[in-house]
């Protein structure tokens, strides 16, 4: 049977020794978060803010434990300062997995507005980032991006497109 994207993500994280998963939750990430919590290989927990998670993963990596931060697009938008001055400046492979909100059927105008800041920010930071939109490319992109981040000691972001995850869509405007 074909593995779902979150099963592939789980397998790739394990294969690359990534065990520490601080996150700010997101609806689309729910199956991945549930699978990670169900597997004793991982230490997963919520944090109050995405910046905190970047600090935790940076500190853990410098002390020998690999980690990845899970978040949604709006959470990424809070990170420019700490990404620039911690993982980018110190050359620390902080990994980000971002569930992409704000595009391909978004119903929340706030999410749609903040979505427009994500790629320009990643490009301005010169951070390696890849959008995953197809199940058949999921393992390759995740595995190679994580591997490269660790080998080059540089941060990287994996963006999970609604094409891959189904996203969070509603079909009509909610009215009173």
């Amino acid at each position, binding site marked *: 049977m074909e593995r779902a994207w979150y099963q592939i993500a789980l397998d790739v994280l394990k294969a690359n020794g990534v065990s520490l998963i601080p996150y700010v939750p997101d609806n689309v990430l729910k199956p991945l978060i549930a699978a990670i919590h169900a597997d004793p290989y991982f230490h997963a*927990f919520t944090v109050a803010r995405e910046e*905190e998670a970047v600090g935790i993963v*940076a500190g853990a990596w410098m*002390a020998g434990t690999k980690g990845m931060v899970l978040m949604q697009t709006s959470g990424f938008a809070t990170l420019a300062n700490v990404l620039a*001055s911690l993982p980018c400046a110190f050359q620390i492979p902080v990994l980000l997995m971002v569930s992409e909100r704000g595009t391909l059927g978004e119903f929340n105008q706030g999410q749609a507005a903040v979505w427009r800041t994500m790629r320009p920010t990643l490009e301005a930071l010169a951070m390696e980032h890849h959008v995953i939109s197809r199940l058949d490319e999921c393992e390759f992109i995740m595995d190679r991006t994580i591997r490269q981040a660790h080998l080059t000691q540089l941060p990287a972001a994996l963006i999970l497109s609604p094409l891959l995850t189904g996203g969070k869509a509603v079909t009509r405007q909610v009215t009173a």
Partner: protein
Amino acid sequence: MTAAHNAKRMYRFDLMQRLVARLEHEEAVIGGIGNTNFDLWSAGHRPQNFYMLGSMGLAVPIALGVALAQPKRKVFAVEGDGSLLMQLGCLATVATLAPKNLAILVLDNGMYQITGGQETPALRADFAAIARGCGLVGAAWAADEADFERQVGQCLASDGPHFIAVKLDDQPPVTQTERDPPQIRDRFMRGMGAKRSKLPG
């Protein structure tokens, strides 16, 4: 228990020297940005020191990451009051995860000293009370230097997470940390035993 307004205002460099003098087991120390890590640096570089150069507010999260990665090593986060204000939520995270090997030291001078001494918006806040409210039940102000030494000893001798807050006077830092982030990171990783290299460290 010492109330914030009863705590003696102490000299940051003196406290950093007192802290470093107590570290005999390669304890990790994460110094928050600016004058906090400048005086940690001035107290004598150790391979187990990490000096932030930006990412204001992340000393506690970085220290938490180190503490989770190496549960047998004691880890100190040394953070300024203005910095902690930017990331108060991390205290709740620390209390929830309850790492036994983590100690948080907050240096409260009530101002943004490095940018010209402007007051912080926390003049009525009590950082030890905030920490207790987040679930760090033993959080306390150090009354004076002797009490600071006693509390540091407690951090080293007993399970945490610990939280000490100190009031500072307005003396400037002694020197500034060398600003070379990849070198600081490389040295710290060697100090943590997380990196081996044939390149001289």
